[in-house]
């Protein structure tokens, strides 16, 4: 197989690898983000129930720090959805006021939670903390002032498990597609490249017979016909002149 053909096939393989790789990458990340969004929205639905309960309590004049029914409510919601690992409500300074896990009370949440909550343009926010993913809601009072934040923690491994499985399947499908491309495209390329290779072959045959005095090849319709004829004419012309010199020299005794 000629080096030019190999090079063209290599181009096809590189492009195929790039395109299929990018497509696999896009599909995988789209799945990951869509799956993550569905799970987050599901957790937020639970959170909105808690948010409504907090606002209802604030509406009747209770202080944010005096919501006695909040912790039992959060514990009930946590039990109802096994995905949720825990719920915390923290104040503006990041200190946990209510939590489904008693040991977390009075502790500070990571600063990334507070900055994520403050950076968000809506009341919903999102953060990641080690093995946990946090979907949060900013809790507001009647005057639309943020009084605290609700954070619902769920396991990253729940998301990762789904992503890894799908990722593997997409990878296998892409690998199969690439193998098919790697087998079929060179065959298709060979069909297309045949004309070019035929032209090159005509040229190669012509130049290998430049010096053996064989009759000129019949025009083949190749792109190089003109060049071959010109080449042969030039060589024939100069060769005849050299032959003429030789004849004249031989004739001189």
């Amino acid at each position, binding site marked *: 197989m000629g080096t030019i053909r190999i090079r063209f096939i290599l181009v*096809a393989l590189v492009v195929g690898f790039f395109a299929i790789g*990018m497509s696999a990458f896009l599909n995988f990340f789209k799945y990951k983000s869509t799956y993550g969004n569905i799970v987050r929205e599901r957790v937020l639905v639970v959170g909105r129930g808690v948010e409504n309960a907090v606002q209802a309590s604030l509406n009747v004049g209770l202080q944010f720090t005096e919501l006695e029914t909040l912790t039992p409510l959060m514990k009930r919601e946590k039990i109802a959805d096994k995905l949720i690992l825990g719920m915390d409500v923290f104040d503006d300074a990041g200190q946990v006021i209510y939590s489904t896990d008693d040991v977390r009370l009075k502790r500070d949440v990571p600063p990334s939670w507070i900055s994520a909550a403050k950076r968000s343009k809506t009341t919903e926010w999102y953060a990641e903390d080690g093995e946990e993913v946090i979907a949060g809601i900013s809790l507001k009072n009647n005057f639309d002032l943020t009084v605290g934040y609700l954070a619902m923690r769920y396991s990253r491994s729940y998301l990762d498990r789904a992503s890894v499985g799908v990722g593997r399947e997409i990878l296998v499908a892409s690998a199969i597609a690439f193998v098919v491309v790697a087998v079929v*495209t060179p065959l298709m390329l060979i069909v297309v490249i045949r004309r070019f290779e035929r032209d090159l072959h005509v040229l190669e045959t012509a130049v290998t017979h430049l010096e053996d005095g064989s009759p000129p090849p019949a025009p083949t319709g190749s792109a190089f016909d003109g060049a071959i004829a010109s080449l042969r004419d030039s060589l024939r012309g100069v060769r005849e002149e050299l032959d003429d010199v030789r004849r004249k020299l031989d004739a001189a005794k």
Partner: protein
Amino acid sequence: MLDKNYLWRIYWQLAGVIMLSVVLALGVVSYFSHRVFERELVPETEKKALTVGASVRSLVLKATGYGFDFAQLHGVEQTFDEVFSENPEFASIAVTDATGRVLYARGKEPESVREYFSRPAVLTVLETPDKARDAVKIGSQYIVSMPIVSPQKALGVLHIGIDSAFVDRVLLEVLLDVLVVLVVSLFFTLELLNFMAGARLASGLGEFTRQVERMKGGDFTPSGRLRVNDEIGRLLRWIDSAIDHLNVRYETLSGEIRRRITEATPEQREQVKPAAMAMEQLRVTKKFGTGEIAPRAEETDLNRIRAPLFAFILAEELTRSYLPSYVNQLLVPIPWISPQVVIGLPIMLFMLIVAIGQPYLGGWSERVGRRKAMLVGAVLATVGFGGTALAVNLYDLLLWRSLCALGYGMVFVAAQGYVLDRTDRINRAQGFALFIGAIMVATVCGPSIGGILADNLGFRPSFAISALMAFLSILAIIRLPKEEIHGPTMAPSRAPKLSEFMALLTNARFMTLTGLAAMPAKILLTGVCFYLVPLYIVSIGNTQAMAGRLLMVYAIMMVLVVPFAATLSDASMKRERYVALGLVISGLGGFLMLFSDSFLVLFAVVFLLGLGQALSIAAQSALVGEHCQEEIRKYGADAVYGVYRFLERLGNALGPLLASLLVVFWGYIGSFVALSGLALICGILFAISMRFGSMHETHAPDSSIGVPRL
């Protein structure tokens, strides 16, 4: 001799085949992904529907708990509407009584769903309310059914319909990106065909054509070049061999004639005379022997610049669609400066360093060598991209971006010098076509792929990928020939002097071209494409990938229209019209934003901007040579073009600054309109000055004036 488009026809056929197989492969991957998505996402959406349903059910139970009649509750449909607005994948919601009769319903119900609601099998849900049930597909919806059971009795069933087409919608979003990948793949294919096969092939076939022409003209001196061991190289060796044999025959005959004349008697000499005369005739009309072969770089040497340049420019272009958003993330408050202006600072600083640096970097790269200058530049940029990926805040980001800018300026100027060194007046246009081609392909591929990467991986990993690309360009630069070539006719380039600068700044003709055409065009380009589009598109809820797609539209317009516009403007010799028309078209785009703020309008804005810039860009610099002949004679082409390019690049730096200031006062839409208005007014003023002003007198272009480096 050989059709010029011969190779391109082959390239396009090959690219067509490659694209066809890639499209089929992507179709297979997409089909498979659809199946996997449906299988995995529908159950998770069912769980979400159950959670949402539980929330709705608790509201209903609360109301009935207060004593309201289950069949006559108020506001249930409104609650359903809220559910739809928060969950677009839900297509229908209905509540039935215990017999399956629909009491409340919203959304588009699938056909025969009411009959399904009243099936005894469905109503058994009321008898075993704690038992989990799978969703059932009715028509195009997956129906999730949940019992509504009060402590006293079973009230009814809540049914939520999940639109199965939501998976299609998810994949449709991917499809847009896949389309981008296809376009990028096409350009990538052509670039690779050229890089991996075409450069050598074109060079080989070019060499063959030249050899044939030389022999036709009677030149039989050997080429003295090393032949590559491929098909073309081998056939060139056959021709070399034929030429060598001719030369041997010629030398042998010459020697024999000389010897016979030296050794012969006067009578014998007379006999040798016809042969000697024929030999002399041959010597005069043909050229034999080793001859003086002018040292000339191989065309493949010139082509070798394309890969490192493409990789390097791609590294920078990858960042275009998301850099402003990244800056926004690292923003620190700076007293007295609006955050909007601060976001534009890194882009402005980048452009300013490139603008100021280029006149000096040209001379420097000439002194240290193009290859070394490119290496230094690429190393600096790699460090810059790496630092940008790890930036702590805006201050160190500015430092890293400055390194990137310095590296960019070095590589750009040195690569340009590399092309200049290896071309002469005959093939300089071809050399620059190669140079600009690499940049344009990187401009098409970079922002779109960068946007996709930023959306999926995040900003920092995307900058790390840019660092990797810049590093790859280092590896390609190392493979460039170490020997520096300095054309004998090339005077060393120099930066313009301050006096020349001042004289040109006060020159009406020069400033009409620069101030009314070149600078506004660049201000509009960088202000809109590099600053406003990436920020605005995200502000209206779109993604960085969408910003990348829009920037790709601009680049594609440039790739498609510039060659035609350049040919047409050169042929018609009415370049002023192309410049004015281009400015007016690109200026009109921004006004569309007054009618709608949708991204489709933004698409039209970028399309018109690309079209306008493409029409005017080639004609602009040609007009300098056409209208500023007097200035070029007085100060030299280097100085005139140096100041022109400097001011043009200053426009690049001013674009983001002006755009950000306008955003502070008038918002995004106002900024789009104001920048476009500036270009429109400049276009009209330019047209008027060309028709009636100092530029009116037409100058025939002086062919002796060559356009110096870009």
